[in-house]
């Protein structure tokens, strides 16, 4: 904390990192190779680094407790922060491609842990390319929720393969999600909204949640309000398009 205050990247009044020092390029190309460490397999993910209070060392802590929520392209982390207190018993992680943005979220979580002892211990972030390395982080059926909030639109048809939702990537998400797990998507770009819905609708291992289920799910309300991008869209009075689907068993 003392260190943090000496650091001008942090606000003096709140102790939280200041976003303007973590500006980064608006987009990076998810299909190009960058260099960051990747765990060899889910069993190589070091939980003690991500959740030090719950896993005091690499071999201590509840082995059966695994990450259950993944926020893909978490940006500045607003959703994770909200989910952390809403589901205090659940381990969750954000995956973000841009390194500065990831650094910001890391600092944000650390600052929140200091300011609120005992809280925010279940949330973490990792810099990685979700289009390549989901299987390195999660075992088959490990996740109960996946979030794709305001993903980059990649308008041109040639670049549709850079989109984080697509027919083949859904195969991977279906692998990582347990049966009954839920995938949440939202965007302010109508064309992308239709694309994500069409991909999910066309996939044999996902089915749409019924309206009553959407009503009853407290998480659905966070989709448009919890993230930085969502708040920006709301401020500008923009429309949003969401698609929320359940992982089903494949019936042959």
């Amino acid at each position: 904390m003392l260190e943090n205050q000496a650091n001008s990247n942090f606000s003096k009044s709140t102790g939280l990192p200041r976003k303007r020092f973590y500006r980064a390029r608006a987009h990076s190309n998810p299909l190009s190779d960058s260099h960051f460490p990747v765990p060899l397999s889910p069993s190589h993910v070091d939980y003690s680094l991500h959740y030090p209070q719950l896993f005091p060392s690499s071999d201590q802590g509840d082995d059966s407790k695994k990450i259950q929520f993944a926020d893909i392209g978490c940006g500045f982390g607003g959703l994770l922060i909200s989910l952390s207190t809403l589901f205090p018993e659940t381990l969750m992680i954000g995956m973000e491609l841009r390194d500065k943005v990831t650094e910001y979220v890391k600092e944000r979580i650390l600052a929140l842990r200091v300011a609120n002892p005992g809280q925010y211990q279940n949330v973490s972030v990792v810099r990685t390319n979700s289009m390549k390395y989901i299987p390195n982080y999660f075992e088959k059926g490990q996740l109960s929720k996946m979030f794709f909030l305001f993903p980059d639109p990649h308008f041109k048809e040639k670049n549709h393969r850079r989109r984080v939702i697509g027919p083949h990537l859904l195969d991977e998400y279906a692998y990582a999600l347990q049966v009954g797990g839920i995938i949440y998507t939202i965007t302010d770009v109508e064309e992308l909204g239709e694309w994500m819905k069409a991909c999910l609708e066309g996939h044999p291992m996902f089915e749409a949640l019924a309206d009553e289920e959407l009503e009853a799910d407290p998480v659905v309300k966070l989709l448009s309000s919890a993230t930085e991008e969502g708040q920006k869209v709301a401020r500008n009075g923009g429309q949003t398009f969401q698609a929320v689907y359940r992982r089903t068993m494949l019936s042959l």
Partner: protein
Amino acid sequence: MEETQMEEGENNRDVEVAPALIAVHPIQKSVAVAIGSDLRVFDLQAGCAVSLVDDSGGPLHKDSIRAIRFGAEGKLFVSAGDDKLVKIWTTESWHCISTVCSEKRVTVFPKNPLDGAHEIQSFCLGHTEFVSCLTFVCTPDYPLGFLVSGSGDSTVRLWDITSGSLLHTCEVGAEAGLLESNGREGQCYPAITDLCATPDCTLIAVAIQRQCHCSLQGVMLISCDFPTRTLSVAKVTGVSNLCGDSPSLARVRVISGFKKSNLDSIEHEPIVLEDNAIPVGEKLLEKLQGSVFIEEKVLSAAAEAVKTAMCNLLIKKQYSTEKREFRKRTRNDRKIKH
């Protein structure tokens, strides 16, 4: 337009030929060899060369062939190459029964043959470099079988298909004594470039890339023990020491004596058959190699070209500064949206 310019730029690198490929019919009816864009088949039963018939006219493949394989228990044969064509042949008459054009380089079979295959069974995670080759192995006792993979990390690994778990790692490079320290970056790992199982799946032949000062020119035999689920190096067959100093890469060699029982005795060496000991010997070699005797000079030039090609295949594309600038200038995701 821009694309053609780019491609021309890329073609300016060293002269190369695609590594030669060989495929043997599952019950030894015929043998096929691909060299560059040339596909040659020899009928082992009739003891004569086969002429391939492709109604499309023109050359069979217009660019280097990268993969050939027998399938459907030997009834079909496929070839695929840099001309972005996949050709399917019936081995009855050696007619091309179908030509499929893939828009990109041929890496995935097109036309949705996998429609409906959405459920991923498992991921086999463990290699620390690219995976270059795969083969399934199974025996009557283990009908489910296993997967064997070779990689740029110099290892061959055995996997459980259902769970994706790594059963055993064979440090091929290390065991062959091929790892050497290259000073700054520590170890250099010669990549596994290809592997192939014997029909009874007890032995796997592994090809290793020649690089740095690694001296192995030949194949390594790995024996596969199903009950204990382990791979172990059975033999390092340095073909090179059997034919003096001349590079052996461009020669078709038949190696005999791969018998599991024999491997227990250290004395036993697989034999590289002399040209005249090969069934239908010279005729076969003439077809597959183009001629029976190959001049030393030609051999070494070919070996050099293959080496370049193999390196280009295995390394990530590196662009020069000018080329990178050119790519940046012509990037179309920055152009005005319509």
